[in-house]
């Protein structure tokens, strides 16, 4: 590698970070060398997730919140995720439009990402991108998810504080409260509070939170904030809520528990991904997969045995041993 992107990123180069992120998105091998170097420098930034239904005002809020955060001098990284088209593989990344007033502040880095088929309201590489922005020196990283339904809650796997944005008058409040989205909120934001019905929505959420609190003991009850993101109203309070959640996490020790859990989950996920990739590569190359599928079709073989055999074979294979040797050398 001719250019040391990792070193440049540690010096704050947006351009180097941008390139590394592209490699991560493309799962380009060149990324991992850099990521190894950057890892020791990560874990410092605080990660805020902004999620909610399409058009709830996530981008507007992200922009307005960033303005508030910047007042305290903190540097901000923004990841804005939009869906890829399942048909063409392309994507229209429109969140940045709302953020253009932030575009030429050198202490803000905004990256639009497409989901590239990854479900859950996030881009696959998002967790890695968080690390890049962290290493780049951003103090707070705000992630705007895809406009989500109810199952797309992957944001909790990345964010320290997850803000769930709701809007009055959509009639889906009660609906979504039943589902997972209620569970993941560390902070509730009722945006478009200039629309009628925000008090009612607020009351509904609070009632539901009370009910929850009676059912089980909770150290943290999600505060409910009202905002008018287009007019910048209520953002100071929202930031205070996020900060007090952070304080709660730190005081209660949950912060490290969460991160430990996350790191373990991620490590497993990466191992899983890599194992799968190399095994699959080998099976495809040596033609064993096609042959096995044929046998499975004819019921000459069952997939349970196949799985066990393949794993056993792989572990004792020379290829496996070679990889092990390579890694101890490097």
């Amino acid at each position, binding site marked *: 590698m001719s250019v040391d992107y990792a070193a440049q990123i540690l010096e704050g180069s947006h351009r180097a970070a941008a390139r590394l*992120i592209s490699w991560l998105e493309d799962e380009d091998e060149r990324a991992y060398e850099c990521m190894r170097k950057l890892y020791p420098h990560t874990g410092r930034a605080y990660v805020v997730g902004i999620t909610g239904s399409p058009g709830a005002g996530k981008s507007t809020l992200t922009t307005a919140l960033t303005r508030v955060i910047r007042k305290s001098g903190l540097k901000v990284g923004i990841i804005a995720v939009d869906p890829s088209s399942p048909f063409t593989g392309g994507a229209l990344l*429109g969140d940045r439009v709302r953020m253009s007033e932030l575009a030429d502040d050198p202490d803000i880095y905004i990256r639009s990402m497409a989901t590239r088929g990854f479900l859950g309201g996030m881009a696959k590489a998002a967790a890695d991108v968080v690390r890049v922005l962290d290493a780049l020196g951003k103090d707070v990283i705000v992630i705007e998810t895809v406009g989500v339904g109810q199952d797309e809650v992957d944001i909790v796997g990345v964010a320290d504080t997850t803000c769930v944005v709701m809007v009055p008058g959509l009639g889906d409040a009660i609906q979504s409260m039943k589902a997972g989205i209620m569970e993941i909120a560390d902070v509730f934001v009722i945006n478009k509070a200039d629309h009628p019905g925000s008090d009612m929505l607020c009351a509904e959420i609070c009632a539901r939170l009370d009910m929850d609190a009676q059912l089980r003991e909770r150290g943290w009850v999600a505060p409910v904030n009202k905002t008018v993101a287009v007019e910048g109203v209520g953002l100071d309070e929202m930031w205070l809520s996020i900060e007090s959640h952070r304080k709660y996490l730190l005081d209660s020790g949950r912060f490290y528990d969460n991160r430990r859990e996350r790191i373990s989950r991620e490590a497993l996920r990466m191992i899983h991904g890599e194992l799968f990739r190399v095994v699959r590569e080998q099976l495809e190359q040596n033609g064993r997969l096609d042959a096995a599928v044929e046998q499975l079709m004819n019921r000459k073989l069952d997939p349970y045995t196949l799985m066990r055999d393949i794993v056993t074979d792989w572990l004792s294979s020379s290829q496996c041993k070679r990889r092990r040797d390579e890694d101890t050398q490097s």
Partner: protein
Amino acid sequence: MARKIKMIMAKPGLDGHDRGAKLLARICAEAGMEVVYTGLRQTPEMIVAAAEQEDADVVGLSSLSGVHNYFFPRVVELMKQKGMEDVLLVGGGIIPEEDYDFLKKSGMGAIFGPGTPTTEIVEFIQANVRQR
């Protein structure tokens, strides 16, 4: 994961004509690109910051308000300053043909006028975009 062409579609200046820019953004996305639409009222600084942060392979500038000779070269210049010479710059809109030479000399990859089939534009981008 297949590499995707990343494109910025930008509207420099106060120009509100966005029919063409939005159309092209959509059509480039349909051609498999990941297109960041910046929206209206972009300064050259904003456009270049976006291109840098997004690691854009292509920057598209759409201008229908007669300000191309002012804005396009400024974008090119800022990109040069940042060492982003390998980014393909394409432009279009209401631009007199007699200005094409000047714009190309100043660093624009190509200029497309009204009536150009969008397929021609997509093909040009695909053929001339950099490798990363």
